[in-house]
């Protein structure tokens, strides 16, 4: 497949933005500037970006509790995201959603979702809207290996097949549902094969390889747009941080984190491939790194200085009409 320099720049910029955003969230959380729980997406960037680069603002995604990466990949403004995560009035959801509930309907981002297995049933609905209204849009739900065991997900897989909905189910298998290994909690050999048994095409890809994700997602998005119905991608991926920020990760094997960061870092692999093939120069990537770092710095600065919600906001927006 041919990749234009502009495309590669875009892919790298988005993945790197997620990486630096998450690393900074970890820092700001530790500094006490972010309340609540935060689940970092670093390590999994190639999945969100590889899939979402096929989507427009009119296509819809549903995300997980580990949703920052999906938001950024779908085009949400990182400054407004940082304000949201800090609980500020000018955040993407006026500070009333927080890390686990960021949504931006203008960008087709139907929401991070703090309930494991929350997004797939809802994304069936978005796909049903697309099908009923004849828009040719598609829906993508993201979930993890943990969510693949939820009843809601199994129900959603079956309904998507029954109604032939334009819905791509992406399962990011990072090996852990919270602190329990997928090899214990997933009772079958392969999540991809289990998904296929519902009656849809499914593929397992290396989720740390941007190009593998991008190419497979392209086939399934195309299929869905052309009335070919649902499909599923199991992305074999790694999580660089804990289930939540602050998780001591006692369940990790010896040297596991060190090893995966050395051998399965999607950004390192991307950089090696694009410079190795002479598609982009290392200096270009370094330059982008500096720009992105500056953007994240600005996001934190603006986030810290943003106003807190007024007390009246507590009562607002429970209903569209009263």
């Amino acid at each position, binding site marked *: 497949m041919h990749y234009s320099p502009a495309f590669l720049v875009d892919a790298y910029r988005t993945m790197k933005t997620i990486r630096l955003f998450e690393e900074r969230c970890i820092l700001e959380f530790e500094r006490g500037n972010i309340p609540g729980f935060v689940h970092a997406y670093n390590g999994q960037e190639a999945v969100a970006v590889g899939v979402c680069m096929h989507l427009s603002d009119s296509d819809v995604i549903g995300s997980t509790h580990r949703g920052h990466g999906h938001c950024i990949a779908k085009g949400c403004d990182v400054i407004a995201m940082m304000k949201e995560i800090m609980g500020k009035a000018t955040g993407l959801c006026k500070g*009333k959603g927080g890390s686990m509930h960021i949504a931006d309907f203008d960008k087709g981002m139907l929401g991070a979702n703090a309930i494991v297995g*929350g997004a797939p*049933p809802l994304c069936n609905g978005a796909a049903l*809207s697309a099908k*009923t209204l004849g828009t040719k849009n598609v829906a993508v739900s993201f979930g993890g290996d943990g969510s693949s065991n939820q009843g809601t997900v199994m*129900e959603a897989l079956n309904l998507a097949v*029954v109604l032939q909905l334009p819905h791509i189910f992406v399962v990011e298998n990072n090996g852990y549902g919270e602190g329990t290994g997928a090899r214990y909690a997933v009772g079958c050999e392969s999540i991809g094969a289990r998904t296929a048994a519902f009656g849809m095409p499914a593929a397992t890809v290396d989720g740390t390889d941007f190009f593998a994700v991008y190419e497979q997602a392209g086939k399934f998005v195309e299929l869905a747009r052309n009335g070919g119905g649902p499909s599923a991608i199991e992305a074999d991926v790694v999580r660089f941080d804990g289930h939540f920020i602050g998780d001591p990760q006692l369940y990790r094997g010896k040297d596991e984190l060190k090893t995966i960061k050395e051998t399965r870092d999607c950004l390192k692999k991307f950089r090696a491939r694009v410079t190795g093939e002479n598609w982009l120069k290392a200096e270009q990537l370094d330059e982008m790194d500096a720009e992105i770092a500056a953007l994240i710095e600005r996001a934190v600065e603006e986030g810290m200085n943003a106003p807190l919600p007024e007390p009246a906001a507590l009562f607002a927006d*429970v209903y569209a009409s009263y």
Partner: protein
Amino acid sequence: MTSTPQQAKTAGSSRVKTYREAINEALFQEMRRDPTVIVMGEEVSGGAGTDGQDDAYGGVFGVTKGLMPEFGRGRVIDTPISESAIIGAAAGAACTGLRPVAELMFFDFIGVCFDQIFNQAAKFRYMFGGKSKTPLVIRATVGAGWRAGAQHSNMLHPVVTHIAGLKVVMPSNAYDAKGLMISAIRDDDPVIFLEHKILYDTKCEVPDELYTIPFGEAAFTREGTDVTIVAISGMVPRANAVADKLAKEGISCDVIDPRTVSPLDVEAIIESVELTGRLVIVDEANERCSLAADISSIIAEKAFHALRAPIRKVTAPHTPVPFSPVLEDLYIPTPERIEQAVRDVLEA
């Protein structure tokens, strides 16, 4: 603020229709008016994937009968028996351009899809800073009296009334059912529309044209000055019958049907209690944390000065719904218990 069905009637043609027919007509008329309205659920048409008839059911109680032949399977969607998938898809469709009316055959089945209702649909708008709307209607049957046993007979409206972000509608007659259904479909928030099984064959005059009934406006189904009776859903006809009987003895009852329990027309109840000084609340739900308990606490707090007797609640006992007909009949508040409660507050 409040109106009676008689006062609110429109000028055009009308005829006597059942509660079932009134809801069916509302769905037909709204689906013709607005192509984004869809109906989905288990056997809302029926017969999909069989060698027999299409539209074999039209909903298990026949409320959606005939919709599929007119609007097709694309807008009248039979689903697998997967309540989480049904309600989740309806919620997702509602915030992406459709106005789904999803059927949850028996409201007892919220147990297998409650996350989609209270964690998802109900919270979207608030969590997302007011940037989304979820015009979703969930229709479900409630109530005992069909000998359907513990898992098909509950009145679980207190459970959803508790949830901020949901509206809860409980029509007690055919006229209200049509107008409230049309309002529910046009509303931009998730609406739980609860149909009491014992009301499906009850009849009254229902206009042929489209009309809406606003949420949060109670109806006075009987007017009186001695005792206020607040009755909900299937209990309204019973309260009316008791009021009619007592009227012959010179006891006059104000019977209030809230019609929607979220929002609740608190003003109408206060206004009536200030006149009568006596309140009986009739609710088929279990008593603890029920709507009866809620209304009782509101009146104790806001109209204590007007009360001339302790408030009386006539509810189901704190038990599951029993199967055996003799026990089920004891479970549901009877006219005798309602009458006794009225006499008690008059004597207090």
